[in-house]
């Protein structure tokens, strides 16, 4: 046996190796099949430390600064998306999330009306191995309350006055306006008064579209 094998040339040995590897490869299942693995302890720790949340005001800052290092995903239906969505968001249903091909080396910020769907979507993406997934804390409800129609402090101290001005500027930028004083009476009109979708001049184009600059070609 050994004598026979040693009389093969290098090329023939390589060919034999390739043949064996090829035969074994018949049984290969390289495409995974969509199974996911999760580490419960890891996930629990992340949830507890809340490192996966993004505050609406932080998101507002990112948008105003024209940052393009994140993807904003709106999980609601088409009609709701059409009425209003946070500037720069792309719409994806939860069912489409796993196959949407979202990049793994970018931050992905998920939001829905409140926090439930975004939390569930977060879990899905985490299970698929995404590392940079975040939820908008409080969802669109919080965006409305904190960014679009913020409540300004009454009788503000100098510090609060500064904050009021900042909140007002942010609200105006996104087409909203601050609430003044009695919050409850203004709750009803808010729903009808969601700002139109025309983006103010300074807002960056949707993060998903223009950002994909280089064709990945050959």
């Amino acid at each position, binding site marked *: 046996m050994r004598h026979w094998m040693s009389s093969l040339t290098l090329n023939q040995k*390589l060919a034999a190796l390739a043949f064996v590897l090829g035969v074994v490869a018949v049984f290969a299942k390289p495409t995974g099949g969509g199974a996911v693995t999760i580490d419960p302890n890891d996930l629990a720790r992340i949830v507890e430390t809340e490192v996966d949340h993004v505050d609406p005001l932080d998101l507002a800052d990112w948008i105003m600064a024209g940052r393009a290092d994140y993807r904003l995903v709106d999980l609601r239906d088409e009609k709701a998306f059409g009425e209003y969505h946070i500037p720069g968001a792309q719409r994806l249903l939860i069912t489409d999330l796993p196959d949407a091909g979202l990049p793994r080396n970018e931050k992905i910020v998920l939001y829905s009306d409140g926090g439930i769907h975004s939390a569930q979507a977060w879990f899905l993406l985490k299970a698929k191995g995404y590392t940079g997934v975040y939820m908008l804390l409080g969802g669109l409800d919080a965006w409305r309350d904190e960014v679009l129609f913020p409540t300004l402090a009454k009788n503000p101290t100098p510090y609060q006055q500064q904050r009021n001005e900042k909140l007002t500027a942010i609200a105006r930028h996104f087409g909203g306006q601050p609430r003044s004083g009695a919050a409850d009476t203004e709750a009803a009109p808010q729903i009808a008064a969601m700002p139109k979708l025309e983006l103010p001049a300074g807002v960056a184009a949707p993060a998903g579209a*223009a950002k994909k*600059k*280089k064709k990945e*070609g*050959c």
Partner: protein
Amino acid sequence: MSPTAQTLNEPWGDGRDATRAVDGAAPAPYMNPYLAGIGLGLVLLAAFVIMGRGLGASGAVNAFVAWVVGSLAPAHAQSNAFLAEYLGDGTTHPLKAWLVFEVLGVFAGALLSGLLAHRVRVSVEKGPRVSAGLRLALAFTGGATMAFGAALARGCTSGQALTGGSMLNAGSWVTMLAIFGGAYALAYFVKWQWR
């Protein structure tokens, strides 16, 4: 003077050619093609594992042309659907593309291998029946032709045949077979350039 099989395997193909490399040494014979292929395959595999993409070359040319046109006639470049893709939204320089840097690496790697094997010298590769001038004109024409074909096919032999071939990409196999088909079909008609 037709080359013999022996001389084809000698680096400069002509047993009577006494020219030495730029460093004055005789050229080393080429590597066993199967070993070179394994080396190439491992480089390709490394690209898959590290970058999640394969090799390429024509894409770098596209980026370069997009940059030149974009610099000289920006409006025209932006309105051209093909070139605009390589310019993107302007946040990154078109030449800061993966393929551009990869092609620079190809130059460096080939130079390294050539120097190690004493195979670097100024020459014009051609058959005995054509002049150097004609050969250069044909090479230029061939380059332009290949670039056009590569744009149509979404890649050249490196991107489609090599990369796409190993990934069992259907379109790449079509391209690869077409490349071999086209080359074999025309080979007889341009034989005077090479033999």
